[in-house]
């Protein structure tokens, strides 16, 4: 025989379970409606846009083999590496435009990364001989100054589609180097990688195994190197 108080208790618990099930069902329906309405994915803050700054681009011309300094207003990030990538992206976007005087396909996405590292001291010939330490070999014993080495990582598609020729390849390499020197004063050396790996030449001619030095850069007045 079940006591009466147990029957009442069972009834109360059953009623509470039913009420809680109904409440839970309603909460589920509300959450489902909120998800469909996209209320949770709506941005709550406007994205931060880097302020536009003046950047000097050394733009090459195939017609006379010259490089002219052009000043462009660009949104430049504060981080130096991202800043260098943004500047080079704009430079390569100019080359990819239909009316470019130095036509090179690929555009700004051809620069994957720009790494800025402490630059080891090197003479002009030492840098050219490949004696500059690789980024991985920079150890605590390496003699360093306040200057920086920029390692530009290009895409393999950019190198594969670059027009072949001494002049056109040299202009591309030098305009990238001189643009970095003009906008990042601490950068004194530039090296290149393609898809993260060393590569002998850009498209069969211009040497990509050496370090290009700021001391060899041309003045930004359009004169040839």
């Amino acid at each position: 025989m079940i006591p009466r108080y147990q029957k009442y208790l069972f009834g109360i618990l059953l009623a509470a379970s039913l009420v809680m099930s109904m409440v839970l069902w309603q909460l589920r329906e509300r959450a489902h409606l909120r998800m469909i309405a996209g209320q949770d994915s709506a941005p709550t803050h406007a994205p931060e846009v880097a302020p536009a700054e003046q950047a000097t681009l050394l733009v090459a011309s195939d017609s006379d083999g010259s490089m002219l300094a052009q000043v462009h207003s660009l949104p430049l990030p504060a981080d130096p590496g991202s800043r260098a990538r943004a500047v080079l992206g704009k430079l390569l976007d100019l080359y990819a435009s239909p009316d470019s005087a130095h036509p090179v396909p690929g555009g700004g996405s051809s620069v994957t990364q720009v790494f800025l590292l402490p630059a080891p001291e090197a003479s002009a010939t030492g840098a050219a001989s490949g004696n500059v330490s690789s980024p991985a070999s920079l150890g605590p014993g390496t003699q360093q100054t306040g200057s920086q080495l920029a390692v530009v990582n290009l895409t393999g598609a950019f190198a594969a589609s670059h027009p072949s020729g001494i002049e056109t390849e040299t202009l591309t390499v030098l305009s990238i180097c001189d643009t970095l020197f003009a906008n990042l004063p601490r950068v004194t050396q530039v090296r290149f990688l393609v898809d993260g790996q060393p590569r002998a030449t850009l498209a069969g001619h211009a040497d990509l195994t050496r370090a290009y030095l700021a001391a060899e850069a041309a003045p930004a007045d359009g004169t040839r190197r």
Partner: protein
Amino acid sequence: MRWNKRVLPALIAAGLAGLSAAAQAPPASAGAPARFVVVLDAAHGGDDAGGHLANNQLEKTFTLALSVRLRSLLGARGIQVVTTRESDATVEPNRRTEIANHAAAQACLSLHASESGFGIHLFTSSLAPAQPARFAAWKTAQAAWVTRSLALAGVLNSALLHTGMNVTLGRTSLPTIDSMTCPAVAVEIAPERSASQQTTAWLNDANYQARVAAALVEWRAEAHQP
């Protein structure tokens, strides 16, 4: 021999050779006839096709044809010519440099072709000039010869301008040139264009090729000018 007797003093006067001042200059035995050697390096070849030119022409084919033509023209003038390749063969850059360096040449010309730009592009090494040393690093051996290479480019420029060619001078970092121990210039041939940017001669134009070859030989005559 009469040609050779005229050549050496003219080169010294033009600032090209400076043979007596250079430690790397090949020793000339007393009484031996002076010789003038030109190295012609037809760029690319074999597996390395180089650039793709107009009308499906390959850079390696163009440079080989130009090298053969120049060899004939220079040989006809009594000049000894050493070539880095005589056929469509793969020759590694270091091997090309070895051939040039062993020739102890007075001029090393690396021949290239491109559809970019116009006229003739003359490039010398972008290495900073350095004093000659007994031992030189392989990749920067040209540093001790840069001054003479610039002089050679100047003489070539003058001769090409004299024949009406458009010439662009520049500096570059080219692995083959940077290791050469001789006055070295990379010669890049591009289509000929008028002042209004209209192409007047393509690279496959036989007449243009002949004019370029003739103009490149004329620098020898230019070197005789006082």
